[in-house]
């Protein structure tokens, strides 16, 4: 247990120390939130869907957590290249504990990052429909963070260097985001997009978040919760399996 805690603490310390990076990684969500949120609001309202800023805020929060947690998972590659991974792998600690410690740490920092964006959304005028949904929203944030940290760990354990990184970005991270319904409603989509959105894990995270915060979920909260929880368990298991097979 001690190992899980110290590795969690390490991720947090590294996060707090990378202030420039924190600010830089807030830039993109803010553009989505403010430029798209305000920019598309008139069109969105005219089509009878209500306030777009309100609609997109849960999506942008989820996006922030997605990016942050996937990249922290992939940080594994850096730790391997700079050698620190080796230090943890020769310690008398089961690899599973090391993987769990890293995942908890990365998921925690991703949640903090998501909360920062939530704070900006509130400053921009976003208000939850009822404050009773906020704890459930926290739950969904945590699930999104765990699911994608585990996915990042899986990718990071498989790639040997950063050369594959651009590919991961273009063929994994961006599709997960754009096909998740973070930016548009899930109803009345063309058939192809309907299918793609339904197989995207982030869809259920965003939908759960949206349901909890502004009571506009497409699926029921229970479906979102069950899908995300199952994914969290499954991907953590896959991540742990890949992590156990790393050879230095």
């Amino acid at each position, binding site marked *: 247990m001690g190992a899980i805690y110290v590795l969690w603490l390490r991720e947090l310390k590294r996060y707090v120390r990378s202030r420039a990076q924190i600010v830089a990684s807030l830039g993109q969500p803010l553009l989505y939130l403010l430029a798209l949120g305000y920019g598309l609001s008139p069109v969105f309202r005219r089509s009878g869907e209500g306030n777009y800023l309100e609609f997109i805020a849960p999506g942008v929060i989820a996006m922030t957590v997605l990016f942050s947690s996937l990249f922290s998972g992939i940080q594994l590659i850096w730790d391997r290249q700079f050698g620190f991974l*080796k*230090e943890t792998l*020769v310690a008398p600690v089961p690899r599973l504990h090391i993987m769990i410690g890293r995942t908890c740490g990365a998921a925690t920092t991703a949640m903090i990052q998501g909360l920062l964006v939530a704070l900006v959304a509130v400053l921009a005028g976003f208000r939850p429909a009822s404050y009773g949904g906020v704890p459930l929203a926290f739950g969904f944030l945590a699930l999104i963070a765990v699911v994608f940290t585990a996915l990042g760990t899986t990718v990071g354990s498989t790639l040997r260097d950063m050369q594959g990184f651009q590919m991961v970005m273009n063929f994994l991270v961006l599709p997960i985001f754009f096909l998740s319904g973070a930016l548009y409603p899930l109803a009345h989509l063309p058939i192809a997009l309907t299918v793609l959105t339904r197989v995207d894990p982030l869809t259920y995270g965003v939908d759960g978040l949206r349901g909890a915060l502004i009571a506009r979920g497409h699926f029921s909260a229970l479906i979102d919760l069950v899908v995300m929880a199952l994914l969290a368990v499954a991907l953590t298991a896959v991540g742990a399996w890949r992590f156990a097979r790393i050879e230095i």
Partner: protein
Amino acid sequence: MIDVQNLTRKFGEFVAVHDISFTVERGEIFAFLGPNGAGKTTTIKILTTLLPPTSGTVRIDGLDPTRDSTAVRARIGIVFQDPSLDQNLSAWENLDLHGALYHVPRKLRRERAQVLLELFGLWERREELVKQYSGGMMRRLEIARGLLHTPRILFLDEPTLGLDPQSRNQLWTHVKRLNQEEGVTVFLTTHYMDEADRVAGRIAVIDHGRIVSLGTSAELKTSTGSATLEEAFLALTGTEIREESAGSADQMRRAARAWRGR
């Protein structure tokens, strides 16, 4: 303490370690010498549970590194050839994290961290992030870290690479003291023959994955008719220069260095 019988490790077609056998007694200082790419680091990786052998048996304090890896890891300390510090933590935090991973009680690990940081001249700068350290300071910190949990066997893979004579002297003096006072078994590799000559009880010379000679420094010199260990080494392994291809890790590290230097 270390018992290796008919150990072979292949990477695809390439045989990195070819049927080697040797034993290291409890409390011995054993040096493993060989040109670049001879199989030293592969052997150390197998002994320290990082790599499974292709065939042969290995026992560390009677335990199998493949099956009882956690128990083996609790008994050994390693100073790696390449850096393995967290550069975004301070020296103190690196030691503290290491102590926690090796289950050293908090109070004890603080005391030992202080003793080691003072010994290696890093105490004044313990709060600084490691990325601000010079190469030599990082090296010293890695060595301090490897000693923190008082291992029964200490593996030193080219520990003095990039160290000034003062630090090298400090390191070997400390290693010898650990060996004499606490009975720590030491397994080391180095390219500096004078170091091996000075500290090691027995020396194995490995080349192309095979042990070509094993004995005390005096025995190696006599058997090759050489005046110094360096001459004996060259007589055993030839004078041809070995090329080692840079792995992806090296390429990456170089790129990272270039990128940070921008």
